[in-house]
């Protein structure tokens, strides 16, 4: 067969070279066994690394999804306050986030596949290493160096092929996680820079600031109206806590021209 046979020759040639190097093939067995155990550790670490990467993406997906939901709410709020421009801005940003989320979902699926494959590879390798150890002890106990040479043959090239394959798989998984870490880092930076608002609510995005301002203007108008009412009736009603309930007075704000004011601090906990 063509290409498939050529590939298997390459694996076998590699095993043969390793075997040829040793003066006593029985030493090769111990050397190889140590290499196998090292590789096993490496594969398990690879599985853990991929899992870490996958979890990080999960956290980011939920952060971005939270952001997206918040922008949706902001759009609704802005629209109820008659600010279509703000609503449009919020929805535009939301669609940007949605494409990020889609991208992360693809990466997540890829990592999940990688994790499953590597986990199975680790199981296979473990079983083979164990089988090799048994075989190695048998050969060492029962054969001279010259005899061992012929006995080792297939067992050795079998495990050597597995090691080459698994070694390559781990290397590829590591490359993949490294590139995903870099992309995840970029999203973290984006979240931290405030381009996407941090879910911890420490940084306020401009849409929130604008909505807060509108809400606070509403509060002022309502408070003024209440005071005027008090003055005319002379009653001393306790002041009502309005807390950003902007909707009832949406029309009043839409009609009035208001000067910009600093964002009210009392809204801090709500964002």
């Amino acid at each position, binding site marked *: *067969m*063509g*290409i*498939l*046979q*050529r*590939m*298997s020759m*390459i*694996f*076998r*040639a*590699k*095993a043969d070279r390793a075997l040829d190097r040793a003066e006593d093939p029985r030493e090769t067995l111990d050397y190889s066994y140590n*290499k196998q155990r090292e*590789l096993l550790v490496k594969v398990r670490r690879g599985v853990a690394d991929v899992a870490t990467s996958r979890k990080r993406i999960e956290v980011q997906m939920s952060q971005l999804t939270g952001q997206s939901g918040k922008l949706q709410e902001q759009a609704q709020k802005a629209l109820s306050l008659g600010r279509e421009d703000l609503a449009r801005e919020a929805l535009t940003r939301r669609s940007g986030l949605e494409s990020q989320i889609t991208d992360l979902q693809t990466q997540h699926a890829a990592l999940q596949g990688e994790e499953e*494959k590597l986990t*199975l*590879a680790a*199981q*296979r390798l473990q*079983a*083979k290493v*164990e*089988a*090799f150890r048994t*075989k190695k002890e048998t050969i060492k106990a029962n054969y001279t160096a010259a005899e061992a040479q012929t006995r080792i043959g*297939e*067992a050795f*090239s*079998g*495990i*050597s*092929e597995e*090691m*080459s*394959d698994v*070694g*390559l*798989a781990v*290397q*590829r998984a590591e490359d993949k996680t490294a590139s995903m870490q870099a992309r995840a880092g970029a999203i973290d930076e984006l979240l931290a820079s405030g381009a996407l608002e941090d879910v911890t609510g420490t940084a306020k995005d401009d849409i929130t600031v604008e909505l807060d301002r509108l809400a606070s203007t509403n509060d002022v108008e309502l408070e003024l109206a209440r005071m005027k009412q008090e003055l005319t009736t002379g009653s001393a009603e306790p002041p009502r806590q309005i807390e950003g309930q902007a909707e009832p007075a949406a029309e009043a704000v839409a009609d009035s021209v208001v000067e910009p004011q600093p964002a009210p601090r009392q809204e801090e906990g709500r964002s």
Partner: protein
Amino acid sequence: MIVRIMGEGQLEIDDSRLTELNPLDDALSAAVESGDDAQFRSALVALLDAVRSLGSPVADDALVDSDLVLPFAEAHIDEVRELLSGEGLIPG
């Protein structure tokens, strides 16, 4: 006959079924020669599907080398070319 799919493990295929793989292998070889990744991809997927459906998995603790080796499913044509050159790509 033992066939390895890189990254997935080994499968045993009855020798009598090997003739079914020949044309697929030829197509893959041609694709690698041509350097066309799309053609390569469809040839690889076809071959992998055939091997998976014809073969039965070799036991985890079996220590046998493979008669045939297939590249991993998502391999790029350049990676396979590098594998075939026998240089560098296989670690250790």
